[in-house]
């Protein structure tokens, strides 16, 4: 009997293994792009490859044309503000306008070199390869308005020395985007590794399990997921927006098999993600006020790549005695890398690694201090305002990277300015001429906005929602990090939290009551002892 079972079991195991092996041999995709003749050409430019793609994928360019990856323009459905890289001013390099070929190096298209114009309309001006190349050798030139380097000259968008890309190899390799397709731009936002987001860095190309449970490999103990597993797409539009965030997601996983266009934690984990036991129930109780990220991303900028936490533009422009730009490299990362703390071109910097987030109520709406908003230069100005409060029912307490900045503004009109920083051949670009007056004037002209001619520098905050680098459950923020006096949420309004105010009015009253009782009892006992001794008698 046992033998029979064992043989039967073995047969099943072998059968399953055979099936799995057979599955491995069969291509996952119904098309092998290396077999398409139209792709086996010695392409001379990016647009030539796109033309070839469009011969089969006839609607792809139209889909792309409507995506924010191509338009860099976003009309906020709630606030009506015109956002997108094309319009906003940030606390990093300032603005795209005036610095096009440098900034548009990460545009998902080719040749957009003027922000006052729409991106190029030609069908072949979309860059298919930047997202779909699987040969891992396609890249974009740092200053080429989106074009790839065709010779080993200059730098790439990730700051490496450029190489001549093999467009044929790239075209034949295409497939669904994986981490480097997204990361080569998004990990390097703000001009370097993890400069901008704090939770998106080169550490996520191949993270360890403690850095990211989703993106670490299966061998590492993770899920081996890529960006697009959460940022699902439909018609080349991706779920997940930083301007209009799904701050709480009561829909959860939806019905069995239901496809959702949402990049929320709840869309996979449901709305009651903790196990149904005495601990899990209490943790589930927290989901009415806390975003998952607030506990499950205990620190950002993990994995050895620091993020820029302070950028003071006002000190930029100091030159040495020979009139040459200077640099200081006084920040040392956990991996021993020296990072700039001063550059003549950019001013002073500071960095953080394993940084504790800033917490705030967030309903998902982000309002930008765009050019047309008046600012109060006597206060620290929020470059972007995080909306939300407890009462609206959809806000949750979210973690943010709070970037500190000091940046240029029009001191007569009290608004932010566009600055022309990059432009090696112009006599106005700040990074070559070190003259703010010229750089701001040129930036405002490039953006076609009026400028008083007077400028100053104002302190700013910029908020970046933290949602990547989810840590293993055992590393989640411990209860006491918040449930204590001056805990992590001490500055968040509209919260009642046990353990944060032991000496409130009732706490003090209670302590006084207990203390008085104790004193009364002690006094009673003392008098008893004393009077008994003097009486000489004993009750017992």
């Amino acid at each position, binding site marked *: 009997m046992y033998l029979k079972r064992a043989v039967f079991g073995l047969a099943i195991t072998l059968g399953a293994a055979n099936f799995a092996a057979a599955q491995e041999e069969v291509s996952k995709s119904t098309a092998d792009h290396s077999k398409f003749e139209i792709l086996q050409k010695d392409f001379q430019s990016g647009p030539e490859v796109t033309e070839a793609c469009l011969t089969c994928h006839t609607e792809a360019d139209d889909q792309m044309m409507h995506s924010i990856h191509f338009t860099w323009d976003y009309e906020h459905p709630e606030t009506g503000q015109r956002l997108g890289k094309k319009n906003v001013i940030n606390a990093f390099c300032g603005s795209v306008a005036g610095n096009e070929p440098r900034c548009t190096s990460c545009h998902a298209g080719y040749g957009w070199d003027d922000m006052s114009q729409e991106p190029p309309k030609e069908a072949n001006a979309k860059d298919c390869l930047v997202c779909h190349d699987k040969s891992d050798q396609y890249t974009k030139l740092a200053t080429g308005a989106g074009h790839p380097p065709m010779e080993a000259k200059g730098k790439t968008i990730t700051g490496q020395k450029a190489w001549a890309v093999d467009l044929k190899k790239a075209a034949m390799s295409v497939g669904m985007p994986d981490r480097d397709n997204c990361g080569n731009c998004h990990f390097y936002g703000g001009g370097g590794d993890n400069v901008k987001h704090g939770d998106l860095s080169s550490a996520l190309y191949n993270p360890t399990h403690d850095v990211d449970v989703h993106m670490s490999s299966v061998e590492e103990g993770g899920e081996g997921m890529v960006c697009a597993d959460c940022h699902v797409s439909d018609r080349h539009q991706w779920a997940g927006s930083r301007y209009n965030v799904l701050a709480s997601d009561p829909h959860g996983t939806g019905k069995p098999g239901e496809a959702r266009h949402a990049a929320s934690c709840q869309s996979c984990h449901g709305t009651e993600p903790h196990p149904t036991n*005495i*601990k899990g129930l*209490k943790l*589930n*109780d927290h989901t*009415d006020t806390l975003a998952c990220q607030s506990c499950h991303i205990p620190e950002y900028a993990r994995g050895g790549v620091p993020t820029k936490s302070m950028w003071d533009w006002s000190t930029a422009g100091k030159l040495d005695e020979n009139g040459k730009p200077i640099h200081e490299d006084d920040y040392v990362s956990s991996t021993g890398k020296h990072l700039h703390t001063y550059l003549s071109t950019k001013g002073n910097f500071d960095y953080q690694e394993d940084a504790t987030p800033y917490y705030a109520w967030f309903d998902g709406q982000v309002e930008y201090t765009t050019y047309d908003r008046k600012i109060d230069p006597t206060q620290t100005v929020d470059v972007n305002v995080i909306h939300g409060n*407890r*009462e*609206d*029912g959809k806000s949750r307490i979210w973690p943010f990277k709070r970037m500190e900045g000091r940046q240029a503004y029009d001191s007569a009109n009290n608004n932010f300015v566009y600055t022309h920083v990059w432009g090696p051949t112009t006599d106005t670009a700040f990074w070559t001429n070190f003259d703010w007056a010229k750089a701001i004037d040129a930036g405002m002209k490039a953006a076609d906005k009026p400028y008083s001619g007077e400028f100053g520098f104002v302190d700013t905050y910029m908020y970046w929602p933290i949602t990547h680098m989810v840590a293993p459950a055992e590393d989640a923020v*411990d*209860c*006491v990090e918040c*449930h*204590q*006096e001056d805990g992590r949420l001490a500055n968040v309004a*509209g*919260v*009642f939290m*046990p*353990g*944060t*105010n*032991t000496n*409130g*009015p*009732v*706490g003090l*009253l*209670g*302590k006084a*009551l*207990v203390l008085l*009782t*104790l004193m009364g*009892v002690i006094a*009673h*006992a003392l*008098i*008893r002892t004393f*009077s*008994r001794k003097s*009486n000489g*008698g*004993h*009750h*017992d």
Partner: protein
Amino acid sequence: MTKRIVKVYPRFERFWHWMQVLLIMTLMVTGMGLNGVHSMIPFGPAVMLHTIAALALLALWIFATFWLFTTGTWKQFIPKIEGMLSVARFYAYGVFKGEEHPYEKLFWRKHNPLQALTYFFLKWFIFPAIWVTGILYLTYNFWSDSNSVLAITIIANLHLFAAYVIGAFIIVHIYLLTVGHGFRQHVKPMVTGYDEIDLTPEQEAYLETNEPGRLKPVES
């Protein structure tokens, strides 16, 4: 009247009392931790322990309530004014003079009038306050909406205040065990169940006949 050793605390009542001691101590220590008075126990485990102890205490109280009413013991907890002043005078004055406690424990009445008043107050106001607020606190997410901050703040503070009152009670309760016959003598009945009681001949005869198990034989 004869002094006899009578079983005054049946097994359930003793179990009730000592379980209550254990659970209330657990609740006190974990609760103070959660409130931030000390940090001896990590917050998460303290929450779980507090919740489990509270649920266990509630279950115990449900049993105890049945027991009180089915056995008629509830009458012990109804306060009477009579004799209260003399007991109060004793604690405030007579005890220092080495006087005898004015209250003689009766078979049908084991609490002195001041004790009865204290227990009445505890059982009718403080305990209900702590468990009503405690249950509301525990079930916050079942009834709350996004505007419940004020409600939970009031509930939590009432809960805290009731806890401090119970804390003060415990201090006095333990201290008073040292008054009179002494700590050991006072705790013993709650352990063994037996105490020395003045019985009328009728009561003695009744017990001899109907409940002989409750009387210890007279030592000769």
